């Protein structure tokens, strides 16, 4: 049976991955690690909060309430006769699920009874059961979840930045929606979203740890259901790549101002090599190894929470910096200056080499944990990438490539600053 797999062996990590597309259309990756006890499986659909306006097979577009993908994730755990959580509990497996901007994933980890846990996963994800009553019941739980997020000033910082940078893209909206938007969710709408996006041709399955690939495929043959393939168009508003506001601010009871700065680029797909290179470049110029970091620390403009970051998904490409600062405007200006300086003088080759090595070691360590490996492979299946290319890139990339990508990604005339500061009355 193994000839149904395409087998890939990576020399650097000494890992072997078994890939296949199941006859139902589900794309599968399996990384066996027989010498550890645990196993992790994740079953996901390319459906997240940004897919809020879609059409199936050329039909009319449906605009669904914000937060519905996340709501659907909560409700899928409940089958007609039994809750998936309870079934997992009976065998000691640990289960969870998450909804992102562009994906919804269901997962479990276990150290025994893998077959049983895998059956539960494939069963509940493929058997939705929504009624008026069960849908209503979830509103209290999710309303509490939304309130919990809103009590985090970082939440306001982030969404305000997205609103300053994107005019129409759904990344402006909280994944969980609002108390008002989730009140419009009905069983019919949930079924409509489910039927559109939980089609096997839109789904991926990734498994790592103490498992046998042949056995996993046998279980897939037994449990995965075929459905007619259909074409989904998820509409994402056009974006010209420029920011809307360069500054946005809100008040919240924080001891010191929080800031997040974004440098926006018109969306394009990045290769794995570029993704890894961008991580190295960000750390080399702005991370704790950089002269910039020490200088800002000495000027008391940043604290240890200062962190460069990156937001990259369909339609969105933003490099970010966030932290606490007594003067967010001053740190923004310093970042501007440093960007211009690096564009003129280039990144220090010595520091680049440190970070190249660090990136290599860091990527090797990612292949330890079944949880991490399965999630990495899941991302590959969803995006059509090969993460091992990123690791190989870390053995050969050069500072010249780094300088070129840096110049492309950081344009100081296309940035926004989001600030949360203490209200005047406080």
């Amino acid at each position: 049976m193994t000839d149904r797999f395409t087998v890939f062996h990576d020399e650097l990590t000494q890992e072997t991955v078994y890939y296949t597309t199941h006859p139902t259309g589900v794309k599968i990756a399996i990384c066996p690690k027989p010498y550890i006890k645990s196993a992790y499986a994740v079953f996901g659909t390319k459906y997240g909060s940004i897919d809020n306006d879609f059409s199936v097979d050329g039909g009319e577009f449906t605009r669904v309430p914000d937060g519905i993908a996340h709501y659907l994730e909560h409700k899928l755990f409940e089958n007609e006769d039994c809750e998936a959580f309870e079934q997992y509990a009976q065998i000691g497996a640990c289960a969870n699920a998450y909804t992102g901007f562009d994906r919804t994933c269901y997962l479990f980890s276990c150290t025994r009874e893998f077959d049983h846990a895998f059956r539960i996963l494939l069963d509940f994800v493929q058997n939705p059961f929504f009624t008026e009553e069960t849908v209503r019941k979830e509103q209290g739980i999710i309303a509490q979840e939304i309130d919990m997020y809103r009590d985090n000033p970082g939440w306001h910082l982030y969404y305000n930045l997205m609103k300053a940078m994107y005019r129409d893209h759904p990344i402006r909206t909280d994944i969980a929606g609002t108390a008002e938007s989730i009140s419009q969710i009905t069983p019919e709408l949930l079924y409509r979203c489910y039927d559109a996006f939980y089609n096997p041709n839109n789904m991926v399955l990734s498994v790592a740890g103490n498992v046998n690939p042949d056995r996993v495929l046998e279980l897939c043959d037994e449990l995965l259901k075929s459905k007619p393939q259909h074409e989904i168009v998820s509409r994402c508003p056009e974006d010209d790549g420029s920011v809307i506001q360069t500054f946005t601010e809100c008040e919240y009871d924080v001891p010191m101002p929080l800031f997040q700065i974004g440098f926006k680029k018109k969306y394009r797909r990045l290769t794995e090599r570029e993704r890894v290179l961008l991580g190295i470049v960000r750390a080399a110029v702005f991370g704790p190894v950089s002269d910039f970091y020490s200088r800002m620390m000495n000027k008391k403009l940043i604290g240890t929470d200062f962190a460069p970051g990156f937001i990259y998904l369909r339609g969105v490409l933003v490099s970010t910096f966030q932290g606490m600062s007594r003067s967010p405007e001053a740190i923004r200006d310093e970042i501007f200056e440093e960007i211009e300086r690096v564009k003129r003088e280039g990144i220090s080759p010595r520091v680049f080499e440190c970070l190249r090595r660090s990136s290599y070691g860091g990527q090797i360590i990612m292949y330890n944990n079944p949880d991490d490996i399965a999630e990495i492979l899941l991302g590959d299946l969803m995006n059509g990438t090969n993460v091992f290319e990123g690791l190989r890139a870390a053995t050969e990339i050069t500072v010249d490539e780094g300088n070129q990508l840096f110049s492309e990604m950081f344009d100081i005339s296309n940035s926004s600053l989001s600030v949360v500061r203490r209200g005047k009355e406080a």
Partner: protein
Amino acid sequence: MENKLYVSTLAEGVTFRAVRETRFKNACIGVHFFFPLQREYVTVNALLTSMLRRSCARYPEYNELRRAHAMLYGAESDTSVSIIGNCQMLSVEIEMTDDRFIPDGECVSGECAELLSELIFRPAVGDDGRLFRQEDLDVVLRNAEERIQSLVLDKEAYASHRCYEIMCEGEAAGVAPGGYLEDLPGVTREALAQAWQRILTTSSVEIITVGGMDHAPVERIFKKEFNATERHPVSLPGRPGYKESPEVRTVTERIDVKQSKMIMGYRLPVIEPDDRTMAARLMSLMFGGGTSSLLFRNVREKLSLCYYCSSSYGRSTGLMFVRSGIDETNYDKAVEEIKKQLAVIAGNEFTDDEFNAARLTALSAFDNIGDSVSSIAEWYANQYLDGCVRTPEQAAERMKAVTRSQVAECASLAKLDTVYMLSPDRTEQSGDLPEGGAI
């Protein structure tokens, strides 16, 4: 796991423990100092960990130290300080890519061990020749102040911290291992040097390596260092005793939040080395240890009162905390339901399925310990004060022996002490944050 374990004594009160593991792509070395908790030294000890992480004599500049780590293929060192029972544990650790995965046969484990010993034994020196640099201390003091002040940004952690502070005032468990704002001005270079000397001289020390590396060079480095250090280990105090409060205390504090954080603190007279700690762990797991627990299934799933409701029990303190985020109007309902579920366990009225589910979850957790370098290292470090070292497999056997009635007994012994609520400000304006605070 026993056959892979190597143990030796390097100096008075210094144990070296090497766990050989070739299943992973990383390795780690940790040096753990154990000493009696003293409230007056908590802040300086916390700042000492920040200083040791920030520079050393060989790399006095922070970015140079970070570059040295990056050159070792992204090795990461970290320092921490925590409270276990009546003791403090100060740890200095380094994690690295295992030598087998480093290109060109370079041996980073030896270099990492050396770097770690530099961090511990040779702090940076000021222009005046004395230990620790004022410029580092200024940065570390500012970061500590910001860290303590911004604790309130994480509402759950803040509520938890306040509940500990209120419920365990005057006890070891009520002390904040991260230190206190009001003590920061007393932290000088001299105070740091004294704390450093005191910890090196008087602590009991456990060094743990996990990975595929040859442990002999690591052992040699630390043997040499500790033998060159004056050593007078002091005896470590036993675990705290059980303290019952006469009545349940209810405290509500108000700040600008939408959701209330509720924490219920219980006390159990089941504290290490009590044989019943395993039963208490299982009880807390069945009560509120995850999605199979009574709290998750009843308070969240059946009554829809919250997004999370969980419990945790500490075997070094006998304290158990139930945490939940609720709407304030549901306070009575939530408290009632949580009490009801504990009564179900105390009355031995839970089902066999519930009992078995909790037990399987516990056994899976023990299974998982052997699956990562960091959890193996943590497992051994955390047992140091127990006075006997068990493998995860041996602990799992003890867990298997726990009976229903032992679990019920532990639940019946749990006494509610404090109910703490962090709730929305009634005036609809952003209210003042409580002053001071700690972490």
